[in-house]
């Protein structure tokens, strides 16, 4: 059983690679080198800050775009193209298919982020000439970004299991934006009354909490990230992604393939 999940995951990875997704690394490399060189030449005292801010923001945005664009098709494309017929007629359970797809895309994003991390640190080395101890926090920020990817991937997969690619992309993107302001949403919900309060609070807790996973600007200012927060965020990302995956499994289990 676990073997099949691994096989599905590696095939999903292979599909992403052959879809030329990793070419985005070229664009990223160009962006980082351009920025590093530009900032290094101007030398206005904030090179380190700019490289970290720009680098991490780019990693996050590139990754979210990839997660959404590939994620929305993970299930719907296979149903539309009917490639699922010969897969599901084999001893593969429907939930194994969902889980395998998830790990395939998540794995792709981790690999992608790894190469981007190399790029960020290379740029940092270029502008600062050596590493500071505080650059370790950049790794934590990258880890949090990967946790964001897990959540977005699971959500895109959830939408893909019942919705068309266009709608899925819109939903996923909307949730990403709203999730970035989820702390504000919870604060706002606390200021309302009555039925609105119930609805707003419900929504505020359902929306993925990306605010806590975005430590880019504090890491850029070499602020440490509390260990407790790392643990809590990890647990939250795993729990939230699992929740979305369960939803996908429940929906997909019931689908009549056309």
């Amino acid at each position, binding site marked *: 059983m676990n*073997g*099949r999940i691994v*096989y*599905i995951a590696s*095939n999903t990875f*292979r*599909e992403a690679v*052959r*879809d030329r997704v990793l070419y985005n690394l070229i664009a990223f490399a160009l962006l980082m080198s351009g920025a590093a060189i530009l900032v290094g030449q101007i030398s206005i005292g904030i090179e380190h800050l700019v490289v970290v801010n720009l680098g991490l923001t780019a990693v996050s945005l590139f990754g979210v775009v990839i997660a959404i664009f590939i994620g929305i098709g993970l299930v719907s494309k296979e149903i539309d*193209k*009917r*490639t*699922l*017929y*010969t*897969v*599901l*007629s*084999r*001893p*593969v*359970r429907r939930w194994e298919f969902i889980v395998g797809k998830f790990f395939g895309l998540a794995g792709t994003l981790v690999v992608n982020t790894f190469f981007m991390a190399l790029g960020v640190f290379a740029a940092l080395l270029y502008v600062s000439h050596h590493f500071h101890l505080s650059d370790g926090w950049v790794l934590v920020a990258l880890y949090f970004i990967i946790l964001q990817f897990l959540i977005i991937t699971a959500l895109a997969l959830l939408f893909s299991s019942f919705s068309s690619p266009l709608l899925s992309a819109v939903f996923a993107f909307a949730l990403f934006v709203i999730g970035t302001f989820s702390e504000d949403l919870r604060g706002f919900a606390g200021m309302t009354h009555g039925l609105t309060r119930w609805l707003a609070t419900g929504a505020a807790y359902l929306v993925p909490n990306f605010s806590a996973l975005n430590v880019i600007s504090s890491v850029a200012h070499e602020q440490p990230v509390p260990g407790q927060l790392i643990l809590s965020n990890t647990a939250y990302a795993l729990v939230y992604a699992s929740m979305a995956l369960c939803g996908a499994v429940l929906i997909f289990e*019931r689908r*009549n*393939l056309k």
Partner: protein
Amino acid sequence: MTAIDILGLEKTYSVGFWRKKPKTALHPLHLRVEEGEIFGFLGPNGAGKTTTLKMLMGLVYPTAGSARILDMEINDPRMKAQIGFLPEQPYFYDYLTAVELLDYYGQLSGVAPKERSRKVREVLERVGLADVIRVQLRKFSKGMLQRVGIAQAILHDPRIVFFDEPMSGLDPMGRREVRDLMEQLKHEGKTVFFSTHILSDAEALCDRVAIIHLGELRSVGAVVDLTSSIEGNVELVWHGNKIPAAMNALGADCHVTGDTVRAVLLEGNQEAALEALRREQLRIISLIPVRTSLEEYFVRKLQPSKAVAGVTR
């Protein structure tokens, strides 16, 4: 053992936006297929053949009824390991090569890692694709894809194979090869369940057939029993190009070619036909019985008023 046991399998869709009208794709179907036979599932397009197959594969859930394959549940992975499925006009991951695809499917079907590469090579040779194993599937023609489809269906040595329109997209050579393959599978002790609207193939291959039309099962039985159950035809050939009026009254199917006329009519009407020709003093060339084909049975069995499109010889 009963290979396939279908008990009242039914599928109804609700169509329409406001007032949902139910549309029945498959009326309750009862059918049994024994192990080791080649079973043909026949009917025109839209009869419900593919719907039945999709339900047997667990791709679509029935509205009512159930089925068991090799006396196991439809969603039982142990059962799925012993069946192979070729869908109609199959689609595969086009970014993979034939070898990669079959290797992946082999992984999913639980073929042991040690044997996988050997089995993949063997099956690709068997379907005649040995030369193109490293080409990406997006470059394959329809016929080549069909062969890949057959390959993936038999790769893991299943006990039963399900083919949905296996001849589609193949040229006559290809169709011959597939027919031979299906015979071989039977010799290997496998059960073959295939759906088609090409009756001559079914006639040549099948031990038993089921005929389905507009979602309803019309008849089941051995080909020979079915065809002998209806009255045979005779072919009458005579000189000249005159067709006596009586011929049309007898419902004869007449064709004029040069200076001979060829007519096909029911055996029971042959005396009246001969009488009509003698009266007109037309010279008879031959009178021979025509073997009743499955097509004949098919056309007679299914009401002529309803569309029987898609039936070919």
